């Protein structure tokens, strides 16, 4: 029985290896093609090549222009802002070097905001992964009302974040909110300042609302991943007398690995950028208990008009997100994205040695 896992992963690992082996000659062939047609007539191919270039330029340029105008230019402007003290109007002349960065990094509100972001990154993975997995495994069984249940789980994700935020804000109102009313009818007294108004509870409340909102995404992704697990494996396991629990643990979850890792990446990026839900539920309060890097920079930029500070904070946010994303790619996602040659070869060699 212990062998099941190995048997399962081996073909999975082997199949990409074979596919790259097939792909290689194809690539070589396509490289060879222009070389082969070159003697046919230089002028003709030159004109054709130019035409092709013009065609590509024609189709790609609009996208590149938009990308430059709305993505790259703003990023460059933010970097430029971050080294000036600027109030949002008039010329940018007050150059301060890296002082904005120093003041942001020394600002307790910002470091707390970064901590909150990291708590939410870890917290949402710890909460949503087991919950999402459990629900996906349950919903993957054939049962009555399966489609309906899947829809219900997915509904919060479909709702606009702002609308979900406003609804939860009203539900969580102290004293007059639905949740406090329900608690009161059960004889439980909610926190006197409300779940969102108590500094020690606010971040966890936000995390619960986020879990409610984004659990649907985890479930739907895991369900999609489960469709990719071959029926044959279940059949084989059943023939070997594996229990349901053993099948899940040794077949389903390992094969769901790539899906879970991709989901983890999306979840992490989402948590780092977290803004709308916090802005609506608490605005970063009470007593800065729920600030995130994004609320910090919006507060500094549009409310206090310290655009230099906000620019520095946004660059730091960018760097933090980039570093975490690259680290995640390198340490966790690499096994999914990298061609399996190395591993496959190592395995084969190991087999040969044996």
């Amino acid at each position, binding site marked *: 029985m212990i062998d099941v896992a190995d048997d399962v992963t081996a073909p999975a690992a082997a199949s990409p290896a074979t596919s790259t082996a097939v792909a290689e000659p194809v690539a070589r062939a396509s490289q060879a093609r222009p070389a082969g047609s070159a003697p046919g007539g230089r002028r003709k191919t030159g004109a054709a*090549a130019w035409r092709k*270039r013009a065609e*590509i*330029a024609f189709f*790609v*340029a609009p996208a*590149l*222009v938009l*990308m*430059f*105008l709305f993505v790259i*230019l703003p990023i460059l*402007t933010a970097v430029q802002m971050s080294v000036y003290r600027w*109030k*949002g*109007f*008039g*010329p*940018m002349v007050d150059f301060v070097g890296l002082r904005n960065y120093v*003041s942001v990094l020394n600002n307790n*509100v910002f470091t707390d905001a970064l901590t909150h972001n990291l708590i939410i990154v870890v917290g949402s993975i710890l909460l949503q992964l087991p919950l999402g997995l459990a629900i996906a495994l349950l919903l993957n069984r054939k049962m009555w009302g399966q489609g309906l249940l899947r829809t219900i789980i997915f509904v919060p994700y479909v709702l606009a974040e702002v609308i979900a935020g406003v609804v939860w804000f*009203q539900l969580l*109102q*102290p*004293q*007059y*909110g639905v949740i406090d009313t329900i608690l009161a009818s059960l004889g439980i007294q909610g926190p*006197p*300042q*409300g779940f*969102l*108004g108590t*500094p020690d509870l*606010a971040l966890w409340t936000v995390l619960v609302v986020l879990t409610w909102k984004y659990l649907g995404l985890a479930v739907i992704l895991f369900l999609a991943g489960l469709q990719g697990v071959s029926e044959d494996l279940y059949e084989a396991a059943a023939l070997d007398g594996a229990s349901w629990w053993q099948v899940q643990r040794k077949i389903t979850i390992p094969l769901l690995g790539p899906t879970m890792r991709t989901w983890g990446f999306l979840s992490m990026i989402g948590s780092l950028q977290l803004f709308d839900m916090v802005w609506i*539920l*608490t*605005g970063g*309060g*009470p*007593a*800065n208990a729920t600030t995130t890097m994004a609320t910090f920079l919006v*507060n500094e930029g*549009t*409310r*206090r*008009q*310290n655009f230099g500070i906000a620019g520095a904070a946004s660059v730091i946010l960018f760097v933090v997100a980039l570093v975490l994303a690259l680290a995640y790619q390198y340490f966790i996602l690499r096994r999914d994205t990298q061609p399996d040659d190395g591993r496959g070869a190592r395995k084969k060699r190991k087999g040969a040695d044996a």
Partner: protein
Amino acid sequence: MTRKIRGAAIVALGASIALLASGCAGQGGSSSSSGSNGGDENTITWWHNSNTGEGKEFYDKVAADFEAANPGVTVQVSAMQHEDMLTKLDAAFQAGDAPDVFMERGGGELADHVEAGLLKDLSDSAADTISTIEPYMAGFQVEGRSYALPYSIGVVGFWYNKALFQQAGITQTPTTMDELYAVIDQLKAAGITPVSVGAGDKWPAAHYWYYNVIRECSQETLESAIANVDYSDPCFVKAGQNLEGLIAKEPFNAGFLTTQAQAGPTSASGLLATRKVAMELAGHWEPGVMQGLTEDERGLGEDTGWFPYPSFEGQQGDPEAQMGGGDAWAVSQDAPDIAVEFAQYLLSDEVQRRFAELDMGLPTNPTASQYVSDPALAELLDVRDNAPSIQLYLDTLFGTSVGGAMNDEIALLFAGQASPEDVVNAVQSAADAEQ
């Protein structure tokens, strides 16, 4: 190799197109005079925030009347929701393309705009109008020159529900802090939440601290503190201690740390309008806000009452001094001269009179005060007109950067996470950073 070159060519092409495009769009304030708003000598662009009902109709009529009185002049009116207007104004300033006549709120923000060369100096061109509204000009002047014409100035005080006060057996509105504490105890004893405050938005909470400062510090102390950027006078810490005293009485609505100021029935204004609390510290806008938050659009109706902020024992400030602020018409630097005429017309007796009759605000033109019909507002106006000085909201006065730091720290004080000294330190260090 060819692929690489082609890629580079495309990037270069894309980049050059983008540069051309962005060059045309213009960035920063350098190309302000070529903006569409500055071009025509006979066209005035006017942005205001009376975008609904009678107010909007009235302002459209004002524009039409001005056009009729000045043949050849066109007034392009843009009525916007208040927050939208502020966002658009910020964007317009950044692009160097501000409207000709628009709203200013005075204080540090106005000073910043003056420093950036966005506003026309009105001291000489509108001297007559300025002389009629002299008492309110202080917040709209920089180094003795006037840059905007205040058309509506209100003061902050407690709005209260007369019926709930009666129910709790309160017969007189409090004039001292001790009396206010007694009122709070009486309301609590009657099972009524005494006060709502929108500390989630910070500024409504900060108003308590401002008022304590105005009560505890004499006018001279405050003025010299601001002028010398030195807030070491003990009266500033005293103001925070007084506020801690009030917070310790626990007079506020449940969850006040995340309560919003004016949005929806669970906001501070909403709680007062729906009779869930007995009073709220707010400005002259409160009746209008409450009307918008109730089904019948009447707000508290007959039960609306107003009393000024109480005084402290042994305070240094004048007990009659009030805190407030308001809106003023400013004219942008590049606007045609006729725009100054228009701004003055907006302050004229007839426009201000109708402005008062429609309860759109508290007119600054002394001939118009008598036409304010709302009894609670009339009471407030009386207090305003008799005040020896009207201190501009401190956050407006200090500007967004210092003001924001101060408000955040006061919100922390409300949460019990900052001391009175912390608030003063936050103001001091933010003000130092501005230097």
